[in-house]
């Protein structure tokens, strides 16, 4: 448990950086400093992983192959890669400890929406709602099928009850959705 905590603790602050970035993307130009920061963080994570010698080569592979999709993407791509990495690290570390059969991680990867410092309380209603809005803003800004929006979709699906998502989807179709899109 200790090493998973250690490997995760920096991830939360990175997480927070990412959210800000995305919001800026939708509204205005992204900040120029951010890509450098995230790039160095990504490097750090990679070196960490390499030293651990865990079955995380696949993860590293995934990260390097994730291509910049749109024009704005170069700023976003390293960030998304860090995110992927961060989500996989605890699972990868613990699974290597327990010597899992090869097939199980393929079937189901244990990962979910991370803890978010904007929503530190028991009440997570806004967390779900915000993730839903973030996803649809991201899609509106980058177009459908933009790979960097997928994580938001995962997050809101993890957090929101299916009934709520159905209702909101319906409201968006009818143009009666109450949130800022």
């Amino acid at each position, binding site marked *: 448990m200790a090493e998973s*905590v250690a490997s995760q603790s920096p991830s*939360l602050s990175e997480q927070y950086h990412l959210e800000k970035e995305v919001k800026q993307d939708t509204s205005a130009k992204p900040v120029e400093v951010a890509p450098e920061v995230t790039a160095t963080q990504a490097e750090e994570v990679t070196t960490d992983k390499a030293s651990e010698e865990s079955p995380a080569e696949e993860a590293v592979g995934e990260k390097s192959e994730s291509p910049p999709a749109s024009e704005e993407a170069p700023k976003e791509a390293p960030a998304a890669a860090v995110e992927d990495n961060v989500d996989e690290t*605890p699972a990868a570390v613990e699974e290597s400890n327990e010597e899992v059969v090869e097939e*199980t991680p393929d*079937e189901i990867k244990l990962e979910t929406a991370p803890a978010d410092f904007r929503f530190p309380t*028991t009440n*997570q209603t806004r967390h779900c709602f915000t993730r839903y809005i973030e996803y649809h803003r991201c899609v509106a800004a980058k177009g459908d099928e933009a790979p960097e929006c997928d994580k938001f979709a995962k997050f809101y699906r993890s957090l929101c009850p299916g009934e709520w998502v159905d209702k909101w989807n319906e409201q968006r179709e009818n143009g009666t959705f109450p949130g800022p899109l």
Partner: protein
Amino acid sequence: MIVLKWLFLTISPCDAAEPWQLGSQDAATPIMQGIIDLHHDIFFFLILILVFVLWILVRALWHFHYKENAIPQRIVHGTTIEILRTIFPSLISMFIAIPSFALLYSMDEVVVDPAITIKAIGHQWYWTYEYSDYNSSDEQSLTFDSYMIPEEDLELGQSRLLEVDNRVVVPAKTHLRIIVTSADVPHSWAVPSSGVKCDAVPGRLNQISILVQREGVYYGQCSEICGTNHAFTPIVVEAVPRKDYGSRVSNQLIPQTGEA
């Protein structure tokens, strides 16, 4: 404990309430361990105070019996004793409050990112569980209802009013996020051995984070009066080894959602 079990001829196959149970159920999470420890800590002070007060009471009754000593001393003021009996109780309540608040805030705190999210949605009168971490679209792939098994359908060894048809399967030794909400009236999702009791409020998502430390089957009940069948809305959490969780979820739960 074993002697007690022989005495009452009870068996405890799982983490459920036992007949004539006096204490808490065995802890399955660090939170429950903390609650039990706090209870014992406070009980130490409680018994000290109880003995002291009883001693004073009995002594007063004994020495100032109306036949023995009909007219007691007429003391109306004593500075020393008044200072003592103000400061000492406040010190005691401070000693109780400090660990209590520490535990209270640590229960709310989400220390690490959870590995899975499970949504528990209360209904009149059953629970619905959604495992949505693995969805690739807005369609729910892993959702099932958990109804109580009626008394006539119980098999030998199953607990009356506690067993359900579909248990919540969770991985042990893993950080879980459980999102509790309701679709109709307020319910409450409670599992005593995991130290969790969380209100399920319609229109609101309440989060609890737990870490089940050992594999097992944990029983709980709806803990908010929610209507006629409130007493028949149990909760069963089955913690399986982490490496079995993936196959359990993908093999066992998907067919069940098909028939439901």
